[in-house]
């Protein structure tokens, strides 16, 4: 029920802060990760207000923003409601996210992510069963078959959550899911090219091969290299984006 765990994280109550923005981010992350799939109907405004612990007005604001970002479509009348649109439309919103962090913040996110993913790979090699290895192998195939940016990013994120699950650690898995909402747009977005895809499929295959062989050190080394390779690609894109900013703006 791992996907249910991921969905529960999407709909968990919000603590505080700019609530409409937080609702937008949560749902946008859920869509980017593929936890909410294209054409899926979102819960009603009242239900969303309940689950997030915010007012219906806040939910309406958030849905308006999501519509403007092209992530959600609202249909009127019988059978109407808010529906998830294809994540490809969200590419510009994801570029915004990459612009909103600085190089040191991106590097720090990758460092944190390496700590979780590297340990997940280490432990998965010691603990993964045949079923786990089969799921990870299927995950490699999913990335190989992905034909668009959204699909590649979803496959990438799923693989890492499966890897943490194979480590048999609920905490590491929850940490992976929580980090995917940040890492997905920031590290996996710049890899949404066919060339990077082939390279990442090879990296995933190397991780799975080491996990299947029970070689924890090698699995961790491959996982660490995989994340830092993504950081290097993301940094190139980010430096380009930040280099064009107004230096006096926020």
């Amino acid at each position, binding site marked *: 029920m791992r996907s249910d765990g991921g969905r529960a994280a999407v709909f968990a109550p919000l603590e505080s*802060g700019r609530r409409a923005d937080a609702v937008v981010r949560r749902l946008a992350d859920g869509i980017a990760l593929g936890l909410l799939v294209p054409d899926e109907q979102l819960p009603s405004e009242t239900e969303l207000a309940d689950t997030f612990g915010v007012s219906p007005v806040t939910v309406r604001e958030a849905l308006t923003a999501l519509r403007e970002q092209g992530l959600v479509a609202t249909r009127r009348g019988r059978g109407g409601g808010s529906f998830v649109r294809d994540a490809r439309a969200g590419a510009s919103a994801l570029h915004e996210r990459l612009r909103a*962090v*600085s*190089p*040191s*913040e991106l*590097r*720090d996110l990758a460092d944190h992510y390496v700590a979780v993913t590297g340990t997940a790979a280490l432990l998965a090699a010691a603990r993964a069963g045949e079923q786990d290895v089969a799921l990870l192998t299927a995950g490699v195939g999913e990335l190989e078959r992905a034909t668009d940016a959204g699909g590649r990013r979803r496959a990438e994120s799923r693989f890492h959550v499966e890897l943490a699950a194979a480590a048999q650690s609920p905490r590491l898995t929850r940490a992976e899911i929580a980090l995917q909402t940040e890492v997905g747009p920031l590290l996996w977005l710049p890899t949404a090219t066919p060339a990077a895809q082939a390279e990442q499929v090879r990296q995933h295959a190397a991780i799975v091969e080491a996990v299947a062989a029970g070689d924890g050190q090698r699995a961790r080394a491959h996982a660490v290299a995989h994340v830092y390779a993504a*950081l*290097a690609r993301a*940094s*190139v894109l980010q*430096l*380009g984006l*930040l*280099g*064009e*900013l*107004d*230096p*006096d703006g*926020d």
Partner: protein
Amino acid sequence: MPTTSAPTVAEVADRVVALCETTFAAVDGLRGVADQLLLPFSQGASLAAADVAPIDGPVRQILDVPRSPLVGAGLVVAPDVLVDARHWMQWWTRDDDGQPQQLQPELDAEEESFWDYTVLPWFTVPRETGHRHVTGPYVDWLCTQEYTLTFTVPVFGTHPERGRCHLGVVGADIVASWLERRLLPLLHRMDGPVALVNAEGRVVVANRPALVTGAVLRQADVPALWRRGPGDATSGGATLHRLSDLPLGVLVLAS
């Protein structure tokens, strides 16, 4: 976008200096207040913690400026200056909502969790050199909990019996990302690899992904270049352009 020629190293240096001077201007304002509050010490009068508390007003004021880069500021008093507190500080940080909050670290040296600030570079360097200092970038786990640069200026007094004494520092924190965002557009337009580094060779911001913020550069021996003194120093294809009056330099590396 209009095409513009690549900025010179001098232009980058000027921009860094301007950003740092803005921060030091706020700190210098606090020093004026601190000098006044600590003046009785130089007149032989005894000073208590309550006597320096009025610095809170000006500190909160500079933190409260909209879009201010400052995330923390205040006065940190040297040991044995106040009669009722061997260690003391009036330091404020901005919380997540931008509201100033007073920092309340454990300053009782008898306590296990005592925070001995008297060994930290933002306190010791201005004390030893008598000169302002920029510490970092570093993880300021106590105050901002962010990747931070701390700007400090020493405060001295002359006690009738004890002579010239270090009375403490006034300072302010900025987060590294603020400098990164303001310098990248300029660095981006430079042709070769360029990094703003501190004296130990740690990257503050650079225009190459390989020169990641926070890394200590191995491509050039920055401390050795630094020791050659003010002005430009070159070695093995790397040139360090030290900024005047700041512990920062612009390092130009071979492409």
